């Protein structure tokens, strides 16, 4: 068994190890790109690649938060509807005439409150994460639809589109936002005490409690951070659609989980990381883009992504059995 604390000492060959241990996402990405390059000449066009990058931005930001949650051996199913709720909140406030910072701030606070509720119920009360977040899934979805009476919030001010259309130094704002979210998550995960505890909670929460650490605060903070990132992603989503719809995020949590697992983060023992997640999000994005280019309908896409996720987790657990 290998893990972060006890790396495998006896190595057959570094290259072979790298090949075996690379996340499945890398292979999927390589194979998909190859196939798509041959079948659809449009795939490697600049326009299409830029399109993929923009599509992947929202998914990557949500998946970064999901990675931290999964590293603590948890799951957050509420992130999809939560993204919808945050988007609706900000859009309603902006259209009601409140200044943009107030609208954005309120949406982020709502994301963090939901995260805090999730984290508290999981960490303090020991409830299973998927049940807790399924409960808040329903609550977030309900509040979002009640706020808008089931409709979309349209007629947003023109400046709101900046979240998607804005460009800095030739790079679109969603890409900058994704890079910033990645940098922040990387710093938190690999350069702070918080990050070390994230890995430790997944590795052995009990040992951490017995060693006298106040685990709960860190455990709750993980869910709060995931909620915050979902809030940030919601602004890009709203700007891209030029409308906020309460159910826009449904199913996004599923793509995010797929990205995290394809990226090599494991459901057990706090193994994995966020670099893999970015590759995983790209793989899911390219998969969806490719299915679109090939003219595969959304209904098949849903089923295919479902099969891919099960296959990826299956490979992951097979690999662990062999290790």
């Amino acid at each position, binding site marked *: 068994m290998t893990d972060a604390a006890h790396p495998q000492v006896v190595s057959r060959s570094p290259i072979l190890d790298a090949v075996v241990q690379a996340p499945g996402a890398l292979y999927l990405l390589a194979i998909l790109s190859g196939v798509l390059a041959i079948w659809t000449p449009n795939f490697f066009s600049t326009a299409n690649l830029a399109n993929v990058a923009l599509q992947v931005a929202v998914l990557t930001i949500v998946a970064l938060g999901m990675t931290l949650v999964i590293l603590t051996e948890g*799951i957050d*199913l509420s992130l999809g509807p939560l993204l919808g709720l945050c988007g609706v909140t900000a859009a309603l406030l902006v259209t009601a005439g409140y200044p943009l910072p107030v609208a954005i701030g309120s949406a982020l606070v709502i994301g963090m409150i939901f995260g805090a509720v999730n984290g508290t*119920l999981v960490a303090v*009360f*020991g*409830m*299973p994460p*998927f*049940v*807790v977040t*399924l*409960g*808040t*899934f*329903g*609550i977030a*979805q*309900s*509040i979002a*639809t*009640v706020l808008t*009476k*089931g409709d979309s919030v349209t007629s947003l001010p023109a400046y709101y589109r900046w979240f998607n259309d804005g460009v800095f130094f030739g790079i679109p704002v969603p890409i900058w936002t994704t890079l910033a979210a990645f940098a922040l998550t990387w710093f938190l995960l690999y350069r702070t005490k918080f990050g070390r505890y994230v890995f430790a909670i997944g590795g052995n929460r*009990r040992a951490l*409690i017995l060693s006298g650490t106040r685990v709960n605060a860190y455990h709750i903070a993980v869910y709060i951070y995931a909620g915050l990132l979902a809030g940030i992603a919601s602004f890009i989503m709203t700007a891209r659609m030029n409308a906020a719809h309460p159910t826009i995020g449904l*199913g996004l949590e*599923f793509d995010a*989980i797929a990205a995290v*697992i394809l990226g090599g983060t494991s*459901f057990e023992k706090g193994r994995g990381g966020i670099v893999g997640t970015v590759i995983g999000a790209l793989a899911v994005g390219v998969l969806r883009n490719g299915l679109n280019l090939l003219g595969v*309908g*959304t*209904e*098949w*896409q*849903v*089923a*295919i*992504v*479902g*099969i891919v*996720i*099960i296959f990826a*987790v*299956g490979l992951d*657990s*097979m690999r662990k*059995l062999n290790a």
Partner: protein
Amino acid sequence: MSVESVKIYSRWTSLDSDQLFVVISRLIALALLITALSLLSPHFLTWSNLINVLRQASLQFMMSAGLTIVVLTGGIDLSVGAILGLSACISASLISSGYVVIGIGSALLAGAVCGVVNGVIVTIARIPPFIATYGMLWIAFGLGYVFMKGEVIYGLPDTFRFIGAGFVGFLPVPVTVALVLLLVLHLMLHKTVLGRSIYAIGGNPDAARLSGMPVTQRLISVYALSGLLAGVAALVVIARLNAADSGLGEDLLLPAIAAVCLGGTSLFGGVGGIMGTAVGSLILALILNGMNLLGVQTFWQSGVMGTIILISVLVDQLGGTRLVRQQ
């Protein structure tokens, strides 16, 4: 509660303190709900409304029964609603074209096949149940959409609709079916080898495996049973609605889990039972009926379901001694 008093309770009631807490809290909830609703709405205590509640509770019970058995093994089946939707679409299309028997068989078969796939993925590929069945949820939804191509099937033959809309004596058929199912599943859980091994696996999977129990085989049967029961529920639902579309199973997952949680079955496995789910379904049906009578917008429903799930699991965590299992 001291050890002494627990012993006395258990001698009187053959329940341990955890189960006693669950039973008493649910009876109180039921009594409060019935009192509140009869005070708030003059229509509540009418014969037709009560029959309506019973029918709703029976449908809810059928959707949650299979899930309960999976949860008892310490697993979860997030795909029940989606499997129900897929089975409903396939059988409705066959039944509306006149193949009633083949249609019924195909609903059961589709449910069981999805369940077996779940079981194989969970046991042989060793994927955590919630992720395996979450994947299956999207696969079944996707296949349902592919199969229906966005159409709605409407108008099923009257002979078939009897399952959903008919009466046996004064009881509606769904209520009768649910009662039979409750009896059969209760006996299965408490009097058969499979039933006892379900509790054993949920209580301690390693001990079950080490004692020589064919855990893999039993777990696959359990997931297959869950899928099969989703198929049964699908038949009753389409017979009642007289229609089916691919979105049928979309909003069924939250209520299904809510009924199991309300029934006091522990999500860590090994504790609880099918009787609890029957009571949970009844409480849930009363709440939904109350919301209808009081004119609450349907937008609130999923929020209410979510809140019910959180509160009932939290109450059991605090009231029982299950917290010990998590830490």
